[in-house]
């Protein structure tokens, strides 16, 4: 039941418990309660909106930064990850397998701002060995959604 509710909410957080209950053939009050419990348990964290900022003319830039760190005894990568994700400029932090350790997404008003953040805040952190910054040039697909959909409804308006 949880999985089905979550899958619906993940694609459309505007759905009401009543709509979800109808679509899943469940009881409205049960769905309501389940959602509430999942909010309390930290399974549902936020009801957000996926926005194509490019279309708004927003000049914000983002960069993905590969960060190599020296893990610390006892806390491993968690401690340094926390020091990084506390910066409001940081949108996401993930621990990676492969040639670097942390993948950090940073946004700023312009390239200079992001570059400065990396140079002054990120690279200077204790235990950070190196950083490689990749600026995002264009987003095609995000959270499973194609941003500039080319496929339109090409069906005949009425068919048997």
């Amino acid at each position, binding site marked *: 039941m949880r999985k089905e509710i979550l899958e619906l909410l993940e694609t459309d957080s505007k759905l009401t418990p009543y709509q979800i209950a109808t*679509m899943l053939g469940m009881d409205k009050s049960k769905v309501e309660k389940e959602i509430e419990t999942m909010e309390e348990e930290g399974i549902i964290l936020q009801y957000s909106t996926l926005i194509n900022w490019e279309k708004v003319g927003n000049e914000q830039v983002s960069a993905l930064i590969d960060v190599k760190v020296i893990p610390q005894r006892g806390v491993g990568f968690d401690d340094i990850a926390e020091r990084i994700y506390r910066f409001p400029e940081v949108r996401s932090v993930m621990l990676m397998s492969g040639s670097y350790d942390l993948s950090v997404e940073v946004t700023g008003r312009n390239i200079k701002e992001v570059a400065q953040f990396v140079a002054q805040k990120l690279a200077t952190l204790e235990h950070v060995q190196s950083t490689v910054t990749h600026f995002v040039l264009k987003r095609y697909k995000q959270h499973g959604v194609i941003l500039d959909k080319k496929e339109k409804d090409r069906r005949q*308006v*009425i068919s048997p």
Partner: protein
Amino acid sequence: MNVKKANRISPLVKNLPPSGIRKFFDLVANTKGVISLGVGEPDFVTPWHIREACFYSLEQGYTMYTSNWGLPELRKEISKFLYERYGLGYNPENEIVVTVGASEAVDLALRTIIMPGDEVIIPEPTYVSYKPCAVLAGAEPVTVQTSYENEFKLKEEDLNEKINSRTKALILCYPNNPTGAIMEKEDLEGIARIAVQNDLIVISDEIYSELTYKGSHVSIASFPGMRERTIVINGFSKAWAMTGWRIGFAAGPRDIIEEMVKIHQYTILCAPVMGQMAALEALKNGSEEVEKMVTQYNQRRRFVVSKLREMGLECFEPKGAFYVFPSIKSTGMSSEEFAEELLKKEKVAVVPGSAFGRSGEGHIRISYAASLKNLTKALDRMANFLDSLNKNIVDRVMEN
């Protein structure tokens, strides 16, 4: 000159009525800003991996004729599919033919078995093609009405009434277009018995079989004595969202399928190879995508039924396909009036039930092969429409 011209068209064709939805199509096409719930095909585009397999096949040079029967690998996969999903066993060598959509298979089946004067029983409301195809094959179509009260299932007693010495075949289409009705095991048992008793051939169009939301689809071919007299027709259009590819198939006893292949070979030669390659990929790796689409259809189905009931329309629970077939009798309008007014006033297109036969009158067909967003919008508009109708009635009563 004029005399000659008058004779140019065969009366058989001349007398075929134009499709009941044609007129309505023009009306909808000429109205702007319409949300159409009148579309009889998936709103999904064919899953990417299937399209991609088609590109690859073209790169590899698959541009030739295939065997008249269809690609052997595809027939093998079809045989496996029919066995795994419905417990039906057909030899891919000589009991399965790949056709240009399920539509061609219906035509082939009829032309193969019909002799002039034979009667073919067709339950109504019905998909629009069966009657014309039967007529073109030289048969006399005999309709048997199904009703809202029976959830549009074919009832034994109604079928029995229509059978006589000339009855040759019965066409079944469950899950049903336009009603969304399904025939469950206990519903089919009696029908199968009648078919055996009266030596009928059953043409079972199961194109919506994978879109069954309560229990699982049962094929009439799986009943005792039915395999030898059933032509199972299915295809890729609905479940895999592949309408435009035009790939379907027929499976049945060897003696019938072999004769069907003769007509197919002389008229079509073979189904297009690109479509066949795509269909092969669909069967091999497509089940996950099908499952996702079916889940969405099912959610929309529940949503639409509950909305329609909320606005006061009587509506039985359709358990298959992607149609809801509510009654609009409470409005006092005919289905055609209702559909036209709804289009004019609220710009929502539905298909009048009367387009599918006499017992479709008093109903409309709503397709939920549309995004949830569009369904919500269209159903809100429809609720508005019904409200204004009710208001009119109240006003009129007050005036009197």
